[in-house]
């Protein structure tokens, strides 16, 4: 459905051209190397007055890569995106696209498309005119313009709404118009600033997949800002984890999820449990060499201590988990709370005065463990993650993979 016939984008053409012209192996190699460093940010910094928004931003993004900027509110994601688009200037550093320094180009000449969180559709124009605007500015011939607009409207499934005004559309439809408007001019790079945050969960999921499909079929280099961990994990080729104006860690989803570089990264991704010295001995059976280790909630196991309460297994069918092969010692704890997260249940367990998050698969045949129940907690020692002993705002970004 998401037609590949639109992949006749400028990018594809460009690529063909260079290959034909070069023809030599070396040029092909150079080409590939250039693709690897398609968008290069080096030493970017920006302050508003005395508040530093971001600094020392270094990144190397390959052509066609889908990057997610993930981070807490106010960490500078939007400002970074706007700087790349040219809507903010930067105080220091360079933005290089395909070998060209665009740091000081006005937004009009950067060839970057952007989708805003609140759509920013022009209210006085119908959907077609909104989408055609960029082409008109580029003085594309009317027939060609119409063809491309229709094509892109088909791609975002809005052909039926072409004659509507923005205020006559739903949120999801508006967002797709915004997407179409940014895509139709065939930008080199697409920036998306929380494009889905104003939408409800179902449309969000649908649009998310749509964006990813279109991005893949057009081979667009994309930077996507989100608050949402799940979205980041699902969509991205790589995730840049931002914190207080720095890129804390960059890597693919797997790396970020399983190997956080420090406590902040661990706190942000995967709801890691941070385990300090106090718990290391009872839970892991040894004193950790680093000051802190982290354990994902699913790397902890629960066994109800039913004997203490005289509960009979026949009466109550509690989940009994098979312990991992390399588990730590039993550490006693008390259940304080639980959250149902769909297919898993997350228990909060008090263990020696510390709160641990423990995820258990949610099976309909089994009952939830009641609050105040005494339990034994076991750790999967193979999953223990050592963290760098660096305070949250580390001066240098870490490459995880």
């Amino acid at each position: 459905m998401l037609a590949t016939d639109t992949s006749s984008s400028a990018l594809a053409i460009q690529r063909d051209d260079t290959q034909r012209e070069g023809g030599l192996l070396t040029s092909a190699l150079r080409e590939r190397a250039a693709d690897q460093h398609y968008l290069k940010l080096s030493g970017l910094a920006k302050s508003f007055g005395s508040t530093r928004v971001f600094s020392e931003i270094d990144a190397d993004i390959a052509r066609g890569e889908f990057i997610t900027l993930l981070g807490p509110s106010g960490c500078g994601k939007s400002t970074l995106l706007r700087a790349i688009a040219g809507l903010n200037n930067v105080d220091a550093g360079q933005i290089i696209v395909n070998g060209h320094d665009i740091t000081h180009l006005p937004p009009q000449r950067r060839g970057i498309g952007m989708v805003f969180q609140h759509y920013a559709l022009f209210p006085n124009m119908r959907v077609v005119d909104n989408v055609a605007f960029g082409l008109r500015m580029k003085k594309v011939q009317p027939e060609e313009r119409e063809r491309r607009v229709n094509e892109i409207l088909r791609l975002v499934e809005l052909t039926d709404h072409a004659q509507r005004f923005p205020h006559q559309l739903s949120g999801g439809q508006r967002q797709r118009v915004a997407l179409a408007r940014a895509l139709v001019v065939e930008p080199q790079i697409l920036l998306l600033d929380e494009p889905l945050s104003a939408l409800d969960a179902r449309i969000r999921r649908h649009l998310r997949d749509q964006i990813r499909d279109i991005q893949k079929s057009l081979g667009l280099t994309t930077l996507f800002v989100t608050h949402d961990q799940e979205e980041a994990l699902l969509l991205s080729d790589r995730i840049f984890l931002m914190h207080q104006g720095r890129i804390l860690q960059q890597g693919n989803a797997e790396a970020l999820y399983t190997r956080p570089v420090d406590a902040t990264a661990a706190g942000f991704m995967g709801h890691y449990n941070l385990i300090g010295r106090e718990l290391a001995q009872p839970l892991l059976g040894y004193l950790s060499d680093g000051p802190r280790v982290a354990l994902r909630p699913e790397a902890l196991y629960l066994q109800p201590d039913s004997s203490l309460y005289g509960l009979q297994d026949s009466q109550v069918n509690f989940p009994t988990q098979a312990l991992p092969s390399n588990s730590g010692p039993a550490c006693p704890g008390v259940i304080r709370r639980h959250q149902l997260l769909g297919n898993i249940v997350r228990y909060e367990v008090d263990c020696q005065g510390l709160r641990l998050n423990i995820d258990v698969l949610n099976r309909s045949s089994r009952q939830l463990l009641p609050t105040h129940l005494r339990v034994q907690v076991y750790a999967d020692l193979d999953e223990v993650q050592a963290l760098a002993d660096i305070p949250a705002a580390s001066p240098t970004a870490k490459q995880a993979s």
Partner: protein
Amino acid sequence: MSLPAELPYRHGKPLLPSLMARLRLLNPYTLVVGSVFTLLALPLVATLFYALATRWGASLTPDGLTIKWFIELWATPRFLAAFGRSILIAVSALILSLILIVPVVFLAHTRYPRLDNLMNGLILLPFAVPPIVSSVGLLQLYAGGPLPIVGTPWILIPTYFTIVLPFMYRALANSLRALDVASLMEAAQLLGASPLKAFFLVVLPNIRIGIQIAVFLAFSFLAGEFVFANMLVGTRFETLQVYLNNIRGASGHFTSALVITLFVFTLLLTWLGNRQPATEGQPVDEADDTLSGTDLTAPIHNVTPDADSRGTR
């Protein structure tokens, strides 16, 4: 290069206050607003200087500063009389307006919602019809006949009621809407108050501030009214504006002092009208497309917590 995009962000904390201040002065937008401000202030400032100058011939600067023109003005019986008349007329017109408008606006927001639509159309009339046109009709209708009131203050009072009607009605309607007066009345009546009692004990105290603001603004508007006063009454009942027009032969310093006095008086009334915390910064944001720039908006205030208990008394 990307300067325009930076502009919304101007309110960041300045790193170097003096440098930022200088940059701000250079910013073209500040420059524009500053110039227009100056442009608008120029006639007033000139008049103020003139009113404070001892003598001002064909030179660029006054010979000296004095407040003698103000003292002279305030010692002129004709001025004081005109001032008194202006206030008398305005106050009478406002009382009449309140008596006539309050029941209408109240009924339009309780019993007859369709009346509100009608009124919103009717109150456009005083705006749409220039005073000079109305005065042609008024002069003919009330010069003789059963009601010969042209040339007396009696014609000004009901005429002034018509011109303050638009913003009085708007202001009162806004207060009542904010109060949700219909349910308030129901509540009071359920508790045993008669409609009239409920109105005086519950509604009136709650829209007092709205009334107050409307009254002050209408007052300042009436203090500046000239067309009707001059056309319908003229020198036979000389108001301030008519007086000012009639003394055009007097010393320029003296008339300047009068102009400044008038302006300060209007200013005072406007300020009194906008003083309430509830109106802070609001007036302009809600200026209406169809009506003139006079502030027609009333504050939105909440029902005071004891409103219901007051109704039970």
